[in-house]
């Protein structure tokens, strides 16, 4: 189907083009806004909601400081206080920091990359609702007086059922897991967007540094969150059904929780830092009026940082009694991470030195970042030294350190980003000069609160104590910290007011007040729903410097896709490395489905929370069903071949492209899946080696016949799944559906085998070994079950006419699932057979 506008030499006027684009890309106001999937709206929602949670976390901090301001204060007893500090940490880490940069990334990335939206808009919207509902669950518990109270890292056995019988811990485990679905889906989407949805010509070396930072961060999330999710599932299972993963009296071990938690927890803080550093790398060169020095160095440093940060987790556990050499490993790795950090710091300093920096408001906050974060980094190196750590671990020294790195390394850059990009969000410049007094209130308040806190910790004040004695010598230190805290709060309140005033009453100004060279400033401000009326072609790292009137040209329709084809929402897909166009990506219109799916998912978690174990599976199935409904509007019913994209060029639609985003998303999802599975494998092996009360009373010997059945079924399913996606099979409806039916049968056989094995496992509540075996079998069985579902889905899509030799996407996306399930089968059986043999010897 050719598009006359692609060959028509004169595109419509910019206004007319805008109206055509807005008609399909825009979201109507009012209740229709619930259907929004556009990244501008969803990104802003994430940011505003995150700020609201920041305010809640801040109020909790104020309550903590009110209690600690004086010794023996009667303000809050231990029961309340324990909820206060647990929720402060939980809210800040899970409900503020991660969603804040997710929102910024969602809003900025398509613009920086020269695309019209993120790769999976409905997934963004679904992620937002999951975040909102999960966060609401946590906050509701606060008002109900049953908020989590075992510390934000929820160490067992304190958080197990024996010592926390109420639902407090379940709220944390289920609420946080619910929110983390949002984080994982955002991670997958960010990776795919950065790798595939770039402007033509934007090869990897021309990508803005912010995109590199987010790419690396998203990969860290992909591998860093699954251990926590798995650990939370295990702990919730222990609390609900008594499976003793962490109970040392029954073959579990409290240290397993710590390892799983910190495997997530350490990368988490770098996940929080890196996007902020990306913002610094974006804003600083603009305000220094010079391109950043060391682009390649920075990319390599960020990659190094990402990997190294996964090798540090035990430095949170230096006092648990690990082997001496392990202490040395983690100590040395923890110091090593200072190197890539220093490279970035000096790249920034070098840029400032070589440029002509302007002391504008965002730069003020960047200077705040430098001074505060560097202090945090230095105390971090101190903490890496084990003898020193053994004194200050679990004291207020650590509290001071973590606030210096998190507030310095994340909050200050985000404040700078707020002042820098607010003119983009609103199209207005500030009318009142509130940025400077806000900065000083926050900066002075922060240092007053936390600088003396290093000394408080060195004087021996432990963490998480609700009060202290007057003769401990900590009194005036705490009072100073509390005063500082309130000052900081005033600063943040002023910041909120300033944002509101700018947004509401700011002067409408010219686009690009900072004279920035990046593509984000080539959109109108505030941006339209579609960002660019036509998509740019990019030849270097500073597109706006090369073509200052690029924005006007694009609005006039001079770029790619400067038209609306059949009412579709389209953007371009490119080759990951070179940036050459390889597909046209079709994106979804506003729909209520993400909200519906999030509600269904939420009811699953709420059912588990209130122990409604018959409702839970129903809610689970409903959630899956609503998610499958998303595919009704996806895909094409006929081959179209390459379609016109402007400039006389053409590209395949994604449904016919071997490089379609969904394929990569599946690969990434399987990587996260594998990480969760390997965490479970680690759990079983850890318990075997370390946990007390082993060997278990009864070993599980899976039968040979049943094992063979599982292997046979999985092999058949994997091979059939592969065959179904081959061009030869795809061409014929009967052939591809036949292979898929065989895949169903294979997975079905495997599932029967797994169920038989599950039935033969000794009581999982009796010993950690049985519980782990049960978990491994369940994990693998679930994959076989989903394999059946996915193959059946493939058949349905095939019957509905969505599949052909050219349109392989529906089948090809799911083929890897069966191969993955086969891998799981192999490893699970190897473990289940091998472990008893190894234990016997």
């Amino acid at each position, binding site marked *: 189907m050719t598009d006359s506008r692609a060959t028509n030499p004169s595109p419509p006027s910019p206004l007319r083009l805008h109206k055509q684009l807005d008609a399909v890309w825009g979201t109507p106001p009012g209740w229709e806004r619930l259907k929004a999937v556009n990244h501008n709206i969803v990104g802003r929602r994430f940011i505003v909601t995150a700020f609201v949670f920041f305010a809640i976390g801040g109020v909790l901090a104020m309550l903590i400081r009110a209690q600690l301001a004086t010794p023996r204060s009667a303000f809050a007893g231990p029961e309340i206080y324990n909820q206060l500090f647990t929720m402060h940490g939980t809210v800040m880490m899970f409900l503020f920091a991660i969603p804040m940069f997710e929102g910024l990334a969602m809003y900025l990335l398509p613009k920086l990359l020269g695309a019209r939206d993120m790769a999976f808009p409905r997934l963004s919207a679904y992620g937002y609702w999951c975040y909102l509902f999960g966060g609401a669950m946590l906050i509701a518990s606060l008002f109900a007086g049953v908020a989590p109270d075992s510390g934000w890292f929820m160490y067992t056995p304190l958080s197990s059922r024996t010592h926390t019988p109420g639902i407090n811990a379940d709220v944390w485990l289920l609420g946080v897991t619910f929110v983390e679905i949002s984080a994982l889906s955002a991670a997958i989407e960010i990776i795919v967007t950065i790798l595939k949805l770039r402007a033509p010509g934007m090869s990897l*070396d021309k990508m803005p540094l912010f995109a590199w930072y987010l790419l690396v961060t998203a990969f860290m999330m992909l591998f860093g969150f699954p251990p926590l999710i798995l650990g939370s599932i295990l702990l919730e299972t222990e609390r609900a059904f008594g499976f003793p993963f962490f109970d040392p009296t029954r073959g579990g071990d409290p240290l397993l929780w710590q390892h799983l938690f910190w495997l997530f927890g350490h990368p988490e803080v770098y996940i929080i830092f890196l996007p902020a550093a990306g913002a610094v790398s974006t804003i600083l060169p603009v305000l220094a009026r010079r391109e950043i020095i060391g682009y390649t160095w920075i990319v390599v440093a960020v990659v190094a940082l990402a990997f190294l940060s996964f090798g540090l987790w035990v430095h949170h556990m230096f006092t648990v009694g690990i082997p001496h050499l392990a202490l040395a490993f983690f100590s040395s790795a923890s110091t090593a991470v200072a190197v890539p950090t220093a490279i970035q710091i000096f790249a920034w300093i070098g840029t400032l030195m070589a440029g002509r920096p302007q002391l504008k408001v965002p730069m003020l906050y960047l200077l705040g970042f430098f001074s505060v974060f560097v202090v945090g980094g230095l105390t971090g190196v101190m903490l890496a030294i084990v003898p020193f750590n053994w004194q200050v671990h679990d004291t207020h020294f650590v509290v001071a350190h973590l606030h210096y790195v998190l507030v310095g390394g994340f909050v200050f850059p985000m404040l700078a980003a707020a002042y820098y990009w607010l003119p983009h969000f609103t199209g207005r410049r500030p009318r009142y000069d509130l940025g400077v007094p806000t900065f000083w209130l926050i900066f002075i308040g922060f240092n007053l609160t936390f600088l003396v806190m290093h000394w408080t910790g060195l004087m021996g004040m432990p963490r998480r104590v609700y009060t202290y004695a007057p003769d401990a010598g900590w009194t005036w230190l705490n009072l100073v910290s509390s005063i500082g805290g309130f000052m900081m709060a005033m600063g943040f309140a002023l910041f909120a007011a300033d944002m509101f005033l700018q947004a509401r009453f700011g002067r409408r100004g010219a686009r690009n007040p900072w004279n920035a060279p990046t593509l984000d400033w080539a959109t109108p401000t505030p941006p339209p729903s579609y960002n660019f009326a036509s998509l740019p072609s990019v030849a270097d790292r500073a597109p706006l410097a090369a073509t200052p009137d690029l924005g006007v040209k694009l609005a006039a329709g001079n770029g790619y896709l400067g038209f609306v084809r059949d009412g579709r929402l389209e953007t371009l897909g490119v080759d990951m490395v070179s940036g050459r166009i390889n597909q046209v990506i079709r994106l979804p219109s506003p729909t209520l489905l993400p909200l519906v799916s999030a509600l269904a998912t939420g009811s699953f978690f709420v059912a588990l929370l209130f122990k409604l174990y018959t409702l839970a599976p129903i809610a689970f199935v409903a959630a899956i069903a609503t998610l499958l409904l998303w595919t009704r509007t996806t895909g094409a019913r006929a081959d179209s071949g390459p379609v016109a994209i402007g400039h006389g060029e053409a590209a395949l639609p994604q449904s016919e492209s071997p490089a379609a985003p969904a394929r990569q998303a599946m690969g990434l999802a399987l990587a996260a899946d594998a990480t969760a599975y390997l965490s479970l494998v680690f759990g079983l092996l850890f318990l075997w080696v370390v946990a007390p009360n082993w060997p278990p009373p009864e070993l599980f010997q899976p039968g040979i016949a049943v094992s063979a059945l599982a292997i046979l079924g999985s092999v058949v399913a994997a091979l059939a799944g592969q065959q179904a*996606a081959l061009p030869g099979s795809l061409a014929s409806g009967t052939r591809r559906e036949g292979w898929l039916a065989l895949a169903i049968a294979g997975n079905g056989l495997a599932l029967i085998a797994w169920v038989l094995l599950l039935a033969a496992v000794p009581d999982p509540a009796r010993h950690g070994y049985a519980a782990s075996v049960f978990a491994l079998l369940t994990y693998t069985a679930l994959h076989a079950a989903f394999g059946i579902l996915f193959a059946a889905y493939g058949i349905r899509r095939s019957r509905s006419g969505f599949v052909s030799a050219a349109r392989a996407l529906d089948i090809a996306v799911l083929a890897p699932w069966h191969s993955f399930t086969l891998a799981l089968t192999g490893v699970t059986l190897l473990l289940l057979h091998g472990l008893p043999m190894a234990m016997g010897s």
Partner: protein
Amino acid sequence: MTVRTTIGTRLAVAGLAGGFCVWAVCFTALYAVLSVGCAWNWQEVSLGGLSALRLGLIAIWLAHVVLLVWLFAVLRRQPAESASAPAAIFLRRAGLAATAAAFCAILWLGLTLHTTQICA
């Protein structure tokens, strides 16, 4: 699987991430063997003066060092592409630098292997 990545993509990933993946595997293997070894008292087994556990750890470490050097050499041998493929030049430089960084990281790790007590 029908997804095919181009040579360019594979090399890009190999360069940027490969070295550190080797480091990560080495780190994991060392920590795992160290933990299991101390739990099962392998440090008491003596092999020619040194504990078997320490020898084993050093062997694992050396193997990964060699692997990293080999990886660096392979990347170095890739033909430098022409200026018409600027991403390739960047990726080659970044890949070599990342692999060199991973090499430094693994050496830093090895520093501890030779200098401290293992278990106590």
